[in-house]
């Protein structure tokens, strides 16, 4: 047994051609032949890795191209976890993303969904696996925002860069508003919401909610 301890940014070792090139003068000809043989075993780049984001993400790029690039990148990212999503949810998610990035409705100055935010969203959704699908929106910074509503009450989660999430729960007790909020790594989202009846928000969604 070789238990693997996970560290962020671990990658398949030995995949750097530049490392081989850099070491070439320092190692013997025979070792170079072996190293080149090892490199020859590696399969080539995948079609999906053919770059989509060749256009600079600047305000000078036409808006319809920026929207297309952002949408295409989000859909390719979704394919990375698609085996953990139902087809129905994937299709609904794509319709929501298309709607959020409709060029006809787009306002000058808004930022399309950021890939890092969308990846945080996907991680959270696969971990939480909500049967109640959220409404989606975008922050001014291009972070994805998901909202679950029950009557006048609402759970809102903003998916930030670097795998962080900010959540706010707004409840109403006889029209007396109460708010709870948190800012946690996405891996601790379930833990952060544990005191606030996550089952209700993500799954049952009953109108006869019991306040936490």
């Amino acid at each position: 047994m070789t238990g693997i301890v996970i560290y962020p940014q671990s990658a398949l070792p030995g995949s750097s051609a530049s490392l081989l090139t850099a070491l070439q003068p320092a190692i013997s000809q025979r070792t170079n032949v072996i190293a080149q043989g090892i490199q020859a075993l590696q399969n080539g780049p995948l079609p999906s890795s053919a770059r989509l984001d060749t256009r600079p993400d600047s305000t000078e790029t036409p808006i319809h191209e920026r929207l297309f690039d952002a949408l295409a990148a989000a859909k390719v990212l979704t394919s990375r976890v698609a085996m953990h999503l139902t087809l129905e949810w994937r299709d609904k998610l794509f319709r929501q993303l298309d709607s959020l990035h409709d060029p006809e409705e787009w306002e000058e100055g808004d930022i399309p969904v950021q890939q890092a935010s969308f990846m945080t969203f996907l991680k959270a959704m696969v971990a939480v696996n909500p049967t109640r699908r959220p409404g989606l929106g975008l922050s001014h910074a291009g972070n994805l925002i998901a909202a679950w509503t029950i009557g006048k009450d609402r759970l809102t989660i903003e998916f930030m860069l670097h795998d962080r999430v900010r959540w706010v729960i707004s409840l109403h007790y006889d029209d007396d508003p109460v708010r709870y909020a948190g800012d946690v790594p996405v891996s601790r989202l379930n833990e952060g919401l544990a005191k606030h009846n996550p089952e209700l928000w993500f799954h049952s969604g009953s109108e006869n909610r019991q306040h936490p």
Partner: protein
Amino acid sequence: MAERYKRAPITEAVIEIRYAEPAETDLLAKVCADFGTTYPFQHPLVNYDVTVGLPPPNVRGEAVTQINQATGHRLSSVDQAEILLLWPLTFVVSQLAPYPGWDVFFGRFQRDWDTWKRVVGYRKITRIGVRFVNRIDIPQVDRVFEETDYLRVYAKLPGSFGPITGYGVQAQFPPDDEGCRLTLNSGLVPSPLVDYGSVLLDLDIAREISPPQKDEDIFVLLDKIRTKKNAAFEACITDQAREFFRK
């Protein structure tokens, strides 16, 4: 027939045909136009291959630089899961997750191959390959997972080394009775999931020795490669992995 898993770990499936002679730029542009309905999103691609030749030490001479440029096209469906790459020397059909099964994937290949050949015509084929990239997502406990519970391909190391943070396994096998060669790559990759570790299992099976030239022979070969690919995949995973993919 191989089992169809509910949660198949395939992240990308690829069928690639390589040619000896490049297709002309105007033919590539024409075939892209013909694919406009099935692949509404089309982007040009440029591949630069730069070779710099330096004279040996203590020998006078100038560096010789050679730049080869190839222009291709990346075509994709609205949901970005179906990709077609058209290069002068290669025709590539790719499917990202969710994988719809071989029959659907192969049907798309046949449809697109037919369109491609009608425009580009016959050219000598030098390689026919199928590549399936799988990512096995393994639950972690206290940030540790045991890849041996799910995979039968892994790095075998002395226990005294203790836990490892990454590994890579690469293997290539001699051509089989069909003249097909399997190249296997496996190793740790960053997981897109919370509290999971992920291991890549990349299987590439290709025939480079006298690949068939006629469509019906190509299709027969691809079906045989598909059977070999399934057998190789099943040989690489454990029963625990199979159970996980069925859930």
